[in-house]
């Protein structure tokens, strides 16, 4: 049952929003869901300090504003924050590396919840460990809050390459590959026979233009999360609509070209090789 839930988000854009006004702009633009959080990742990066679950009041205000699903973030391993979010009836919980981890060894046992979870991954082993813990949706981590798509591309390509390797492995090699991936054997066997993840794979981390959305969709992402990229751009309304259209028509470059025209400035962005804080390294 949990596996079907995230299918309804496919081909869509999930947007980070920090207040009801932004949530309304996102819904108007055609977002399939919003992620309610107090600060977008680029501000978390700038401000430093401990980043925690959002104030329930802020989440409830957003739930009252939009008709689309509302997601919210809990810290890695912080099952009490997840319990609170479930009690608030959020539609998905993102156990997210963007917040400060609460447990540096264990993630949340997601099977203990009825609300579906989304988790980040940088490679196939990490993705399958999260699915083994009960995640029903995997997103590439990318490097959140940078406006730089390079890490998301690295993660998608890594996961795809590792899945192709599994698909071509013979029966004896599978066990060693499962060991190398540090992933549950039943899930490794499933990927080897189907050629794809058992749950949808979305992309997050650094997407800030329609071209970025088209790029990651062509690399096999089934939907995109856009964090700082929309509300840190010059014209959020226009950017939101353009990314929604580019995600649907990602194979038609003439549509992507049309919606990319006259958008104003995208978020400024950061070179990832000089970053002091690498969020993608959080998660185990």
């Amino acid at each position, binding site marked *: *049952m949990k596996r*079907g*839930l995230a*299918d*309804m*988000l*496919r*081909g*869509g854009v999930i947007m980070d929003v920090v207040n009801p006004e932004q949530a309304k702009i996102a*819904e*108007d*633009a*055609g*977002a*399939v*869901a919003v992620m309610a959080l107090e600060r977008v990742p680029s501000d978390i990066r700038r401000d430093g300090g401990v980043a925690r679950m959002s104030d329930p009041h802020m989440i409830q205000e957003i739930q009252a504003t939009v*008709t*689309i*699903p509302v997601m919210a973030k809990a810290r890695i391993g912080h099952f009490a924050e997840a319990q609170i979010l*479930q009690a608030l*009836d959020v*539609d*998905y919980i993102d156990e997210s590396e963007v917040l400060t981890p609460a447990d540096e060894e264990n993630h949340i046992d997601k099977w203990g919840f*009825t*609300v*579906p979870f989304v988790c980040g991954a940088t490679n196939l082993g990490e993705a399958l460990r999260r699915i083994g813990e009960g995640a029903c949706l995997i997103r590439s981590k990318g490097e959140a809050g940078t406006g730089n798509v390079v890490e998301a591309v690295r993660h998608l390509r890594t996961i795809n390459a590792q899945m192709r390797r599994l698909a071509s492995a013979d029966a004896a090699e599978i066990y060693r590959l499962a060991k190398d991936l540090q992933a549950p054997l039943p899930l490794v066997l499933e990927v080897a026979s189907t050629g794809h993840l058992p749950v949808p794979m979305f992309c997050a981390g650094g997407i800030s233009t329609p071209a970025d959305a088209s790029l990651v969709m062509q690399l096999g992402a089934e939907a995109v999360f856009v964090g700082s990229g929309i509300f840190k751009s010059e014209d959020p309304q226009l950017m939101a*609509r353009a990314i*929604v*259209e580019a995600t*649907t*028509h990602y194979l*038609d470059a003439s549509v992507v070209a049309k919606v990319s025209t006259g958008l104003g400035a995208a978020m400024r962005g950061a070179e990832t090789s000089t970053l002091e804080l690498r969020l993608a390294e959080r998660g185990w």
Partner: protein
Amino acid sequence: MVAARVGVLSLQGDVREHVATLRSIGVVAVAVRTLHDLDAVDGLIIPGGESTTIARLLETSGLRFALGERLRDGMAVLGTCAGLIVLSRSIVDGRADQWSFGTLEVDVRRNGFGRQIASFESVIEVNGIGPVSGVFIRAPKIEAWSSAVTVLATHDDGSGPTPVLVRQGAAWGCSFHPELTDDHRIHELFVASL
């Protein structure tokens, strides 16, 4: 006789499952994203997804009016979940500006069976088929319908039976997701009506 070509509206949602279901019952399934795609199909499935997103993308892709015309001309159509909302005559308690085609004379409430956390699976008795497994995800609830609508299945969530599979002429609407199970009989029923 040329085999029927059934389109799946491929703007957003669980398109892949519908395409796979159609292909497994031997139907030529085509992704529909443009006017050109729409012209080439004999019937259409509008999948599950987010109805506000699908409605917005129908406008930006220029499909809204062309599809509306095909629907008025009586093209066969099946809407599941969000697709049912898009085909309905009115949306109860939705966004004030959300439009729908009005092909099916039903009033639906978005997430009428509850939010994501209230998603459920239940055995549904379908007229002419028998029991099928119904997967309900933030499912819309049909709260009122005209006498022109044939109710093919109902579900009782404790507040009395409500229709979950309906037909009005060439148009079919379904609150749940027949495309998410291995039981293809609802798709077969729809395809047989083409």
